[in-house]
């Protein structure tokens, strides 16, 4: 029960974020029940029943089981016609209640325009202008994926792959996340589901602890990584697994033992760098 309540709390947080549109929806339902009793009766009843289902823990449990627990609590709220009813209520407000307002009585068209403008301001204040501020990034003109990622994949990973061959890449998560979307010829030693746990539902495959450590090493999150020996071991492991391209964040080459390990080995050769990353390529492949 505690897990369920926690899931509901988290889901509600995901659903509302920093916005207050759900309040508009509740106001819309209130208005429909108490002021517009004869309008869109079935829709109103459905919305009310669904809202109760989504708030009552037992029915939530049932709904989550129905959704096979693949989708979380927040996803279930798509069943509620929030945008529809809010839109209906706000439109009704503009046409039915706005004429009662005292200002601009002589200019009905301007009054409607003023109401729409005021409503836009209200929605802006209760919502946001940026898409999910935490998660998405602004794309650069002409790029679909993050610019630096796309550039590095084009220039240093996909450039010159022979016909019918594949290239193995090991890089920080920011690049690995987009690598296979960018080009299907790029193969990865581990998939995105290693660090995005919700993606593990998409496959039964799993990874051994050493793969998780490899992920930690390339991302700079592995403990004790400042030792040169550890990096040397991972570099030799990468070359034995024939990982063609290695990419590291530039700042790591000054902070831990990786820079020294890279100097000592001869399997990988420096190929190039961008503002944020530095690229190494398997020597044999470069010579070929």
């Amino acid at each position, binding site marked *: 029960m505690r897990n369920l309540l926690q899931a509901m709390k988290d889901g509600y947080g*995901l*659903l509302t*974020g920093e916005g207050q*549109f759900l309040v508009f929806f509740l106001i819309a339902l209130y208005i429909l029940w108490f002021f517009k009793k004869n309008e*869109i009766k*079935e*829709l109103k009843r*459905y919305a009310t*029943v*669904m809202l109760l*289902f989504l708030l009552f823990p037992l029915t939530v449990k049932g*709904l989550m089981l129905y*959704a096979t627990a693949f*989708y979380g609590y927040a*996803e279930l709220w*798509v*069943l509620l*016609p929030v*945008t*529809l009813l809010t839109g*209906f209520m*706000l*439109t009704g407000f*503009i*046409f039915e209640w706005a004429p009662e307002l005292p200002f601009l009585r002589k200019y009905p068209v301007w009054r409607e325009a003023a109401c*729409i403008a005021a*409503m*836009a301001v209200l*929605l*802006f204040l209760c919502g*946001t*202008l*940026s*898409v*999910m501020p935490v*998660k*998405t*990034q*602004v*794309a650069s003109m002409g790029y*679909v*994926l993050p610019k630096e990622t796309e550039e590095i994949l084009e220039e240093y990973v996909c450039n010159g792959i022979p016909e019918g061959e594949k290239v193995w890449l090991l890089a920080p998560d920011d690049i690995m*996340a987009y690598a*296979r*979307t960018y*080009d*299907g010829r*790029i*193969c*990865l030693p581990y*998939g*995105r589901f290693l660090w*995005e746990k*919700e*993606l593990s*539902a*998409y*496959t039964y*495959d*799993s990874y051994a602890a050493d793969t998780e450590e490899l992920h930690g090493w390339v991302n700079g999150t592995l403990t004790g990584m400042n030792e040169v020996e550890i990096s040397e071991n991972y570099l030799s492991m990468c070359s034995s697994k024939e990982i063609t391209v290695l990419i590291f964040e530039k700042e790591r080459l000054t902070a831990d033992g990786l820079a020294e390990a890279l100097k000592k080995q001869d399997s990988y050769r420096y190929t190039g760098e961008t503002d944020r990353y530095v690229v190494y390529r398997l020597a044999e492949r470069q010579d070929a």
Partner: protein
Amino acid sequence: MAQELAGEKLIERSIYIFGIAEALHLAGLFKHVPVSSLAGIALPAWLAAVVLFAVKDMLDKKKKKKQGTETESGDPAGFRKFPYRTLLFCLIAVLQAVWFLMLQTPEISGDITGETVQTFLTENAVYTVNPMTGSAFTQGMPARLKILGLPAFYALICRLTGCPAVYTVYRIMPLVTFLLAYVVYGLWARFLFPKDYKKQITFLLVIALLFQFGCYGIVSDGARLFAAGWRGETIRALILLPYALLCLMKKRKKGVLLCILAEACMVWTLYGAGLVLLMTVIVEVIRYVDNRRHMLLRQNFKKEGGV
């Protein structure tokens, strides 16, 4: 029978087109037909479907002309009466499309459609390797995810048009979802405010503002529309569920059935039973209870000697 609106035709025919892709996807999955061969079948199948739709429309038009019933047309009079409001809505919609197509990086967390489409195209086969790594599966993949046809649909479009998968998945398909979502809300506008163009266009304007400013949570309608328009969950939330609800209100069984089937082919469901089906059941139960209540009230009224 009520006249089928152009928007309804568009939504339902889009589902039919997707249905063909789903059938081809299953052929690729179970019969191991290469994606290139599937594309070779998809093109004539889709063209045949479009021709059939056009022929059906022509026959319907002729039939209605003979019967003397009016055919549906747009509302140019409404547009002429309220041009500023209409233009404002169109301007907002266009700006929204430009905004999310040019400036937003796709929200890929929790989704592997892009990788899957690229994998289908590179391997020229359906689910022969793990889309997230490019190497063979060690344990496999849940069958109920494998049967979902959206990645194959996108891969077929890539194969036929030559458009890169990144653009097809993250730019073109979200635009299609965006347009269809407005079509659905346009149909709702006609349903909620029949023969009142002024209210209809204002309703759409309000919806556009709700989408624009409602991007605050990862599952809010606005965020889905602008950052994840290619996903099955987005199509369900913004097209299938509102359209099925509209069909339920209008008692159009065909539309509801199509949405139930489309959902089963697009998102993870309980052996085909998805949220559209659940919504249908709830609406029908509410309707049944309401009818029963009215019947009992009428019986009581008669018993008490009412006329």
